[in-house]
């Protein structure tokens, strides 16, 4: 007969001291190994790809950065550089940008939704939740370890992607405050990744099914992204109102680009509201036949129309990043708390 090497537990009247958190390190690693290996592996593979093609894109970009954007003002050599860039580099960059926009929710759905839902689907929660470590603490440890790992990876990847996509800011006339660019930069990208992960875990616990939770995560995440875009202009950073010329028109752009314009309006001579039909006509004229040297603002000024802009300068990038990453982090923590509450409440 098998020999016992440990005495039976003594009768205890008080609760034992909780097991140290570090005990969850190995279980989390072993159970989430698929996530913890595949996510870094995929990101590493994509990083190598981005590095190789990024070097080519930056090389092409360095050649055309001094060419005017306006085709009318381009020399034959510049036109050739642009046509080359637009036919080879742009499609690639565009696909990468779309995937980058989806990356947080892909990571979140695949890593987050099964984290607890798999235990419920397979019935293994009846093993896990009756071990001495306790179910809530197990859930907290897993969510914290996996979530932090994903956020760090996402942050590093966002830095690489920022370098990769920098040339497109010029050619696509975007800037770091453009919605789709802001989303993939700095702290906001890892914050979105963390929130998507937390949404996945929460919905997995709510539905107790992996596939429905993944599908719902996609929907909730997209709604959240659109919501973030809607409120981003309202962040408490100082917006500037002025009639300065923000563009070089289709001339050489001012890098790092123009600010994020919240709204634009026009006044006529003497500061009175401009005649809308006159302004529309002038705008149409400029769009169909832009002046090679003069910007729109200055073209309008020649006709006695003043262009006013309310805009957020690019210097507000980091304050806005902190604000957005901050509320996303709070949301992620709230979702984690709700998930743990469900773990506590949800019963067999």
């Amino acid at each position, binding site marked *: *007969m*098998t*020999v*016992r*090497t*440990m*005495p*039976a*537990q003594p*009768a*205890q*009247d*008080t*609760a*034992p001291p*909780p*097991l140290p958190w570090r*005990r*969850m390190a*190995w*279980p989390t690693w*072993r*159970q989430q190994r698929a996530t913890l290996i595949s996510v870094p592996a995929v990101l590493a593979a994509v990083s190598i790809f981005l590095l190789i093609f990024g070097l080519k894109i930056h090389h092409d970009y360095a050649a055309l950065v001094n060419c005017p954007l306006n085709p009318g003002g381009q020399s034959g050599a510049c036109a050739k550089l642009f046509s080359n860039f637009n036919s080879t580099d742009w499609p690639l960059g565009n696909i990468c940008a779309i995937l980058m926009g989806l990356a947080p929710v892909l990571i979140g759905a695949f890593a987050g939704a099964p984290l607890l839902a798999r235990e419920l689907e*397979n*019935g*293994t*929660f*009846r*093993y*896990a*939740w*009756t*071990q*001495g*470590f*306790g179910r809530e603490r*197990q859930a907290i440890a897993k969510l914290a370890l996996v979530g932090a790992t994903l956020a760090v990876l996402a942050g590093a990847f966002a830095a690489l992607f920022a370098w990769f996509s920098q040339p497109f800011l010029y050619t696509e006339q975007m800037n770091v405050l453009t919605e789709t660019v802001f989303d993939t930069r700095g702290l906001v990208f890892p914050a979105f990744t963390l929130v998507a992960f937390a949404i996945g875990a929460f919905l997995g616990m709510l539905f107790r099914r992996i596939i429905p939770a993944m599908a719902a995560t996609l929907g909730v995440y997209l709604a959240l992204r659109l919501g973030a875009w809607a409120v981003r202009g309202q962040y408490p950073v100082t917006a500037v109102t002025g009639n300065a010329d923000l563009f070089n028109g289709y001339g050489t752009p001012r890098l790092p680009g123009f600010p994020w314009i919240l709204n634009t309006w026009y006044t006529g001579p003497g500061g009175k509201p401009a005649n809308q039909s006159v302004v529309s006509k002038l705008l149409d004229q400029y769009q169909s036949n832009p002046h090679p040297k003069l910007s729109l603002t200055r073209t309008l000024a020649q006709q006695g129309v003043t262009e006013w802009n309310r805009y957020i300068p690019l210097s507000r990038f980091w304050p806005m990043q902190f604000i957005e990453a901050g509320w996303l982090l709070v949301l992620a923590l709230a979702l984690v708390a709700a998930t743990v509450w469900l773990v506590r*409440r949800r*019963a*067999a």
Partner: protein
Amino acid sequence: MNVIETSGLGKRYGKSWALQDCTLAVPAGQLAALVGPNGAGKSTLMNMTAGLSVPTSGTVTVLGGHRAGSPAALNGVAFVAQDAPVYKNLSAGDMLHLTRNLNQGFDTPFAQARLAELGIPLKKKAGKLSGGQQSQLALTLALARRPRLLILDEPLAALDPIARQDFLAAVMTAMADDGVSILLSSHQVAELERVADYLIVFSRAHLQVAGEVDDLLGCHRLLTGPTAEADTVASQLTVVQTRRGGAQTHLLVRTTGTDDPVPPGWESHPVSLEELVMAHLRASNGLSGPSLVQPAGPSLVQSAGPSLVHPAEQTEVNR
């Protein structure tokens, strides 16, 4: 000490009660068998006792007053759920390591030796083990935690007859060596007859019988006599079940002791555990006979028979 105490315990799923009004005290150091048909409320009671699900009404405590699912309860109670859930993609060795990490104490040498004895290779994925081996793995993990209460939900279902005997032997050894209390559910009563010290019968979400097996057997008799006299005899006794034949009738009756007088012309036989359980299950289906258990009241079970359920103090048996 009572290893499990429930009071007015109930669990409702949607509109239907899976368990209702269950008041029970299971003494420590025994193998308590929980029997009843499928859907009778056995798993529901076990899940609540293991702290997996929360009662809709009433309370359940374990190990002398700890709320089920509390840290002290989780620490001292090991639960092997129905179908012995293990992580299919983890090896047996990984499951050992996992369980060691998740618990206060874990007897790794014992677990390794037991798996070796059972011929379960540590490197093999749990999902590749046979159903019986998975059950044995789950039992090994539970035993190696050195629990004070071991809850086994239908552990025999996946096992072949030889494995069943081995499994029960392992459970009995743990009881003898460590003084572990066992709560084991099954719908195969015959196999439990030799091992169960305490019997709990459930039917239709209600507790039907609870008591020490020896006492229950001691106070039930099977009387066999002419059918013509059956009604007269039955009217003077507490009849649990009546099986009427053409000439002879069998009455399963509750007595005050084995030396109760037998009506002239009748024969008295001791009953088997299975007969007793079946009689009570039939009775609970509204066929005949009183329930042994009146769940209300602090003294757990008040019954006509003698000490069907003992007050906690009296049940500290020396094992």
